[in-house]
């Protein structure tokens, strides 16, 4: 298991997200990270046609190729983790006029790099050929204890992005902060990949949580 943090990288200092991507990639490679393979995260949103139903977001991540992750808006349920065939099932429900896909898929495409015990995924967010930004996912593979893993990754990000701890904490998504806060009461701090995907959902701007 891994502990991972997903953040949106600022691209204001560069002319375009593509240039920012190249710049960060070069920085990582110069620091010793090795390119392994392309990585992709895909998000499809299903809107309900029938009245009592809710919006469902289905994500796939190339790091977990045999799974798909589903999340319902405005609900307190955790993420549902299923086989790849779940997408075929959702498409079938779409064909049966239970759900509808109104927005096109949002994709994060980029490169996966490995640096010792870290797995770094750097990618550009795009929807319908329009590039929207840059996302960085840093995972520490050697442990699954959330708080310690989070501190370690934070140190790594500090040195890589050359910024202060406070700036990094501001970049961390709301979902991960809530997860960390909820762990104070619980004994088991085991991280799981659904939290990574929830962070992606936050960044891709789609998640709406229920109040309370």
């Amino acid at each position, binding site marked *: 298991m891994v502990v991972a943090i997903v953040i949106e990288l600022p691209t204001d200092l560069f002319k375009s997200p593509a240039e920012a991507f190249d710049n960060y990639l070069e920085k990582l490679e110069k620091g010793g990270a090795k390119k392994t*393979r392309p990585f992709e995260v895909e998000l499809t949103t299903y809107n309900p046609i029938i009245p009592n139903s809710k919006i469902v977001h289905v994500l796939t991540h190339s790091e977990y190729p045999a799974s798909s992750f589903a999340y319902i808006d405005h609900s307190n349920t955790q993420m549902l983790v299923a086989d790849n065939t779940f997408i075929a099932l959702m498409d079938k429900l779409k064909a049966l006029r239970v759900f509808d896909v109104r927005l096109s898929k949002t994709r994060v495409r980029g490169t996966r790099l490995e640096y010792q015990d870290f797995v770094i995924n750097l990618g550009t967010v795009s929807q319908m050929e329009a590039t929207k930004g840059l996302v960085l996912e840093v995972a520490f593979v050697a442990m699954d204890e959330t708080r310690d893993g989070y501190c370690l990754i934070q140190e790594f990000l500090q040195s890589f992005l050359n910024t202060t701890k406070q700036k990094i904490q501001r970049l961390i998504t709301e979902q991960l902060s809530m997860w960390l806060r909820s762990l104070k009461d619980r004994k088991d701090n085991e991280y799981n990949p659904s939290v990574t995907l929830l962070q992606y959902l936050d960044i891709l701007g789609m998640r709406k949580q229920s109040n309370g």
Partner: protein
Amino acid sequence: MDPAQSLSGQNRSSFLPLEYVLQGSIEDKSAHLLRARLQGLCDNITGEVELFDDHEIVYSLRPPAPTNVSLRVRYALDDLPNPIYHLRYVAAAELDKSTHVSIRQFHDCCVTKNIQAFLQELGFGYDYEFYAKGDIYRKGRIKITVAKISTSTERNRNDGNPMVNRRPFTDSCFVEMSLIGSVLDDKVGDEMKSFADQLKPLISLEKIDQKR
């Protein structure tokens, strides 16, 4: 090809999974004769018959859904306390008088424990549930299950107590012969029919009759 890429490629492939089905029933007191005959006719690698003990819960969409969609959640009671849940969608069988077997489309995937809460959030309501306990026999691609269907005396919502009181539904066992194939398999129907003929006169396996 990189395994991650080939798996995510599979995700996008549009294969149409079809299930060829024949169903029948046999009285409890004659079920042992059927089992003996099946043990003789079918593939018998280990010498022992494979048993199963499953709990299936059916959820369906309440009106005003356009079609009557139902999804089945099934898990093995043998796997407690952490069973693997299967989510299955089966369409109504096609009414085709020329074929010997019923053909229906289906989608199957493995999901996590929170599938029941997930389906309820989506607007699916609990319909009914049952327990199926019996044996599985295989002959080539054909799978035959001989199961005793029972219901519980009280509604058991959590996967928990296997000692719940079970009441048999009828005095007979439910027998189903199925094969998974694609649209291009013409000979499948004949293959299944000829095998079903070998089981007569003990049991007569027929197409699914929607009216009954």
